[in-house]
């Protein structure tokens, strides 16, 4: 119980750190990474919540969150390289590379 409480505290602190980066982060990629790592921390926190309340069934929910987080980050990143979430990976990217347009924002 104590171990889980300490782990939950550490994860909440990590969430706060990711949150600071998402709010302050100067570039787009800081924010994408902060959002992704925040999702990972949420997955871990939900798993820990299950063990804290003595109901490890919550692990299934945490697994589903991991899937959603993964797909969401992929959608955001593909959006920035192809300007649309659903273009095939094999198609050539637009003439201007995204890093030239987005990196400086």
């Amino acid at each position: 119980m104590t171990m889980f409480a300490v782990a939950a505290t550490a994860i909440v602190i990590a969430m706060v750190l990711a949150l600071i980066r998402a709010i302050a982060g100067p570039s787009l990629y800081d924010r994408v990474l902060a959002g992704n790592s925040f999702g990972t921390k949420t997955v871990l926190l939900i798993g820990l919540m299950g063990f804290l309340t003595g109901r490890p069934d919550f692990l299934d929910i945490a697994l589903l969150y991991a899937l959603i987080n993964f797909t969401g980050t992929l959608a955001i990143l593909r959006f920035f390289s192809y300007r649309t979430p659903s273009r095939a990976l094999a198609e050539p990217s637009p003439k201007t590379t995204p890093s030239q347009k987005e990196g400086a924002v």
Partner: protein
Amino acid sequence: MTEFTAHISPIVLLDLSLLTMLIIVAFAMLRSRHLFAVVMLSGIYSLLSAAFFVSLDAVDVAFTEAAVGAGISTVLMLGGMLLTARREKPAAKDRAPVALAVVLATGAALIYATTDMPAFGDPNAPANDAVGQRYVEETPNDIAVPNIVTAVLASYRGFDTLGETMVIFTAGIAVILLLGAGSGRGGRKVVDRAPSDEEAQ
């Protein structure tokens, strides 16, 4: 009305920190003029509220919040952002007091309304008067699913859920038909034929 005694357990502390982060994210979204940051922060907001719903045992609401809030609507808002500017224009300062007054009045009315709600866990609350007690007692024997909400949604009200699913499925098919297949890649190019002389008369 019974006296509410607060137990400081790890879960309560966890809820408090989640709610604090929710408030911080909400204010950061309000303050930020950078629309991409607002989209990412709204995804984080959805993840936080989903975690909070899990801690309130509302697992089905948490699923929906995570899938729709953090997944679909982030992508939709990014798509909308591509069509508009990257930065929000500053709002007119003279409108701010009116908006603040409306928000404060609505908030005060909502908080006033909560005073009429039954206390948390009150056995005489309307929610516990009807079939709720029966669900709580009979679910382990009838269905043997650990989560009672899941049992109610998927078994006791199974046909209701099936109907909802069919409505959403039909709506999805209708949207796909209206947008046309392949609309995600920009769709087919449709060229209007110029009317011939006979049709133009």
